């Protein structure tokens, strides 16, 4: 480690404790993928470190990178919380992970297509019928539909976590309207401003291809191939927490950003947008609205976000919607338990990536054990996201556990229990020091005609010491993610 005249970062006082640290190994040496970074950081004085962090925060405010939180009856745009120290991953480990993610999404898409058609997996006794029948996200309106390429989930954000021993697990697959990819892209562009020298010295896989890959995937879904298809991004509007991302992706793809009221379904079952040139045919909708709000004729009658007749048009093959309505059936923490089996059943392969061992509260043989061990477990509702409505056992109070015991017993189908994973840590700027903080990783996987996985993804970091909750709505931050090698 090089030394300068200033006092430099002292790695000997950096202690990730029980957790696996993504930068430093157990003996205090940097892992191979992190060597350059650790050396560079080591040469910075605490003041320089602080200055670079402030420069990054300033850039975020000036560029207007925000997310929206709903608080005290008002929507507030908050600056995106970002930590300058990147999270590093080795290239060969990443290649395995990437193969595992593709394998998983292929199996999930075969599963979704199967449950809306013949339900072979149920008939063959490999997936319990009652789970399907009790699924809130199985949409009868989608039975028999055939999206282009028979792919339902075109965009997937899978959450990966690394446990104490270094094993990477898939924690969940977000198949409805996964968000965060714009922050992954912005994080990279800020890091290039903050640590330009590091990009020159080593090979870090670029992530900037994503908008082009997304656009190509969407174009591949068009019901009118050959033409120059009209692709739009459908947003619930400016009050949505991810509006920044909707507008960002629309701009980067050169697609129109539309709201439900901009679209109308004609007598010919085609979808049109109201434009100053007149009604203009739309071929592909990248929807950032939950499926059940898409069409008030079929789903939520009160929905003002949707477009009457949209599902009719989609079923008639006049418009493509990504992700396809009905995809949410596989975004369920009970269905998640069966993904390794789906891989074996549909692909005849062994899963490359492991699931976190997960118990169904609906299983009467296991439920009493779960209720007795709440203090050691994480309990999650099957259908929520954003870290809402979950219990992290070791960090809960006796009263919270008592409440959860009650709500689980009331509706066991809606809950799953998992052991606590001690998420891996990454050095994070806290005041002027580097301290370990827990992280997860959300790569984004695309499937249309072909597949694409973002190199790395969005690393989310729990900024509070010891905390395992990384969601931005719950005080989490984010980091750039480098696949190095």
């Amino acid at each position: 480690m090089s030394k300068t005249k200033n006092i430099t970062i002292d790695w000997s006082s950096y202690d990730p404790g029980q957790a696996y640290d993504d930068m430093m190994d157990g003996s205090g040496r940097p892992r191979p993928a992190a060597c350059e970074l650790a050396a560079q950081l080591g040469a910075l004085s605490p003041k320089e470190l602080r200055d670079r962090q402030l420069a990054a925060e300033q850039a975020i405010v000036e560029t207007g990178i925000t997310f929206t939180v709903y608080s005290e009856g008002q929507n507030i745009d908050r600056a995106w919380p970002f930590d300058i120290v990147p999270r590093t991953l080795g290239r060969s480990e990443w290649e395995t992970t990437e193969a595992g993610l593709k394998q998983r999404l292929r199996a999930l898409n075969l599963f979704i297509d199967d449950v809306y058609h013949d339900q072979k997996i149920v008939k063959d006794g490999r997936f319990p019928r009652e789970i399907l029948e009790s699924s809130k996200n199985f949409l009868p309106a989608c039975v028999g539909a055939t999206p282009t390429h028979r792919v339902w989930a075109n965009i997937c954000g899978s959450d990966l976590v690394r446990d104490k021993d270094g094993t990477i697990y898939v924690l969940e697959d977000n198949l409805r309207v996964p968000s965060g990819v714009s922050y992954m892209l912005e994080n990279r562009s800020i890091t290039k401003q903050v640590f330009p020298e590091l990009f020159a010295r080593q090979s870090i896989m670029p992530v900037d291809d994503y908008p082009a890959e997304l656009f190509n995937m969407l174009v591949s879904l068009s019901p009118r191939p050959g033409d120059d298809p009209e692709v739009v991004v459908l947003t619930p509007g400016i009050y949505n927490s991810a509006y920044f991302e909707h507008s960002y992706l629309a701009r980067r793809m050169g697609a129109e950003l539309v709201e439900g009221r901009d679209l109308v379904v004609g007598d010919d079952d085609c979808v049109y947008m109201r434009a100053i040139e007149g009604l203009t045919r739309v071929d592909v909708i990248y929807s950032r609205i939950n499926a059940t709000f898409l069409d008030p004729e079929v789903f939520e009658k009160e929905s003002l976000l949707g477009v009457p007749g949209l599902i009719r048009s989609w079923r008639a093959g006049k418009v493509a919607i990504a992700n396809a309505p009905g995809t949410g059936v596989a975004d369920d923490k009970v269905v998640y338990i069966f993904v390794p089996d789906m891989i074996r059943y549909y692909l005849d392969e062994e899963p490359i990536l492991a699931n976190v061992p997960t118990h169904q509260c609906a299983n009467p043989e296991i439920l009493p054990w779960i209720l007795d061990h709440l203090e050691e477990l994480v309990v999650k509702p099957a259908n929520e996201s954003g870290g809402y409505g979950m219990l992290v056992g070791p960090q809960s109070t006796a009263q919270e556990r008592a409440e959860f015991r009650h709500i689980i017993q009331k509706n066991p189908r809606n809950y799953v229990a998992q052991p606590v994973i001690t998420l891996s840590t990454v050095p994070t700027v806290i005041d002027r020091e580097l301290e370990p903080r827990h992280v997860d990783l959300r790569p984004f996987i695309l499937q249309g005609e072909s597949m694409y996985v973002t190199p790395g993804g969005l690393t989310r970091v729990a900024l509070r010491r010891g905390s395992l909750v990384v969601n931005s709505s719950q005080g989490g931050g984010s980091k750039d993610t480098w696949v190095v090698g």
Partner: protein
Amino acid sequence: MLSRVAERVYWMSRYLERVENAARLVAVYSELLLDLPEDARLDWSVALEILGMGDAWQRTGGTESELGFLLTSKNHNASVLASLSFARENARTTRDIVPSEAWRTINELHMYAVKNLPSMVQRPSSPVPAEIVGRCHKITGILDGTMSHGPAYRFIRLGRSLERADMSSRIVDVAAAILLAGRDEIHLHDSTIWRAVLRALSAYQMYRQYVRRRILGPDVLEFILHDADFPRSIMHCVQVLEESLHKLPRSEKALNQVSALEDRLKGIDLQAVDHQVVHQFVDELQLDFASLHGVIFKTWLNPMSAA
């Protein structure tokens, strides 16, 4: 370009123009009240008439002062503060389209108005209206100087010109109505009132420069209605409308409306009319403006049928 986006920039621009005109009107009007003797019986109700808020104020039963209603009422969407909130909301929801400097300036103007308009209710002859007018000019300048003069900008110009023409016609109308009321005391102040009309339209200096005569009612009307070069004259606004419409797709119907409007304007000889005729003429103009807005709305802002 999406119709919804066109609609938002159109309304943003209309509301900003309205704010600017209302602020100028309040400044001029508060001076006019000082210039006229008490027996002329002018009060703020006339200003409310000009802004089309008279009936709404009557319905409040006098719970708010007239000026307070005009400036800050939350119960009427035409008050200065409400108009500004709408302008801001429309700008906020089109931040991808509107230059960010313009958005910032609109946002700052809104904050300024929230803070300062309430005090103006007590003291109308304060520097606040001039500040508001100045900031509106700044916004117009930013849009003109930094925004591509493409479709979105054309809708900004349409909104601005239509609102401006409408406001100019209202001011002329009310001046005519005051004089038409025919009370002798008022007639002694004819030229004071016509001067106020010019100043409410920032037209005084240009009028002196181009008309070069003492202020006479027919000349003022001629200038405000027919002068093609003065940017707040109705004729000029109509020509800007025509220019902007020409470059939009499917504009035949709107262009027909505009040319009918132009014919009507040219068809009146203002040297030979009395106030009653002016009043009727302005009524007809206002209907023309409303139907032009209707055509713009149906053609671009809310199209219901395929091209």
